[in-house]
């Protein structure tokens, strides 16, 4: 288990390994040109929400920003460390970006290959992000008369 912790002033994302010590594993600076002891531009949008999408050997961290955009970073393993590469920004609107995710334990229920290749996003409208062939595909969810049930939740 790991914890993703986001900060502002300056903006960065830190991954903690949830062992007894909970030491940080790695971190990603969104504004690498800003020194750690210098407050960033106060107009910059802070990280508001975090999610991860993965499958077929590819893993992306998704950062929902306060003012309507999302930054996606590919997680790459080099030697014995994790790095964030290929950051890209997608603009959804003006309001805060929220990921809609289930809180039940998918690991215990998933008997097939470990994949989590779809995430829903709320920012003024509803969006769906899919990971296909190692590339993120983003589409607005359009409602019609036909609805399919794609996931069974926790049963008791």
């Amino acid at each position, binding site marked *: 288990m*790991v914890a993703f912790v986001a900060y502002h002033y300056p903006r960065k994302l830190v991954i903690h390994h*949830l062992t007894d010590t909970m030491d940080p594993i790695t971190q990603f600076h969104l504004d690498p040109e800003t020194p750690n002891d210098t407050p960033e531009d106060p107009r910059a949008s802070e990280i508001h929400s975090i999610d*991860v999408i*993965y499958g077929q050997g590819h893993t992306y961290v998704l950062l929902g920003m306060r003012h309507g955009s999302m930054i996606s970073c590919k997680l790459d393993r080099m030697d014995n460390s994790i790095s964030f590469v290929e950051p890209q920004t997608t603009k959804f609107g003006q309001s805060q970006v929220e990921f809609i995710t289930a809180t039940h*334990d998918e690991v215990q229920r998933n008997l097939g290959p470990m994949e989590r290749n779809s995430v829903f996003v709320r920012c003024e409208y509803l969006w769906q992000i899919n990971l296909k062939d190692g590339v993120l595909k983003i589409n607005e969810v359009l409602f019609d008369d036909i*609805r399919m049930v794609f996931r*069974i939740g926790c049963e008791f």
Partner: protein
Amino acid sequence: MTCGKENSEGRIVVTMTYNETKILRWTSPEPRSNNMIWSGDLEIDDITPTLANHLSLSEPTLATSLVAGSILQITPSGMYFNDTVRKQVSAQERIVQASVVGKDIILVVYNDSGVWTLWSITVDVTHPSEGSQGDDISFSFKGQIDLPREPSAIRLIHFQYSSFHLL
């Protein structure tokens, strides 16, 4: 949160703008099994009064999950399961952020001394022996680390660092 046979019933935990929590129950007149076509019709009832003794309803809900058939609720004052299982922080502390996956929880706790701390906690569910009623539920403290300042967001993910596979 979904539950019940054929995925046809669930709970919605709502934090109101005035920092009160409401619990709603949704039911679908049709089954909602995987890959079935569904009309999208739901019936929604407010069941908040029936849970007044189980949850903390006068605070905002920071995170919630369904564990062993009960609603786990995390608020600034603590974690609540029902009227007997709860863990509250001290008067000098308050929970400001929370993230839950299954039985695992992380919290950001602010102390009046000005310290921000990340806590890792697990919910332990022990199935009772035959003849006993209900599951035995408790919280296990796994670890903590002081943070340099207030985080703007946190997220708990199943991730096996050593093999770089998400779990």
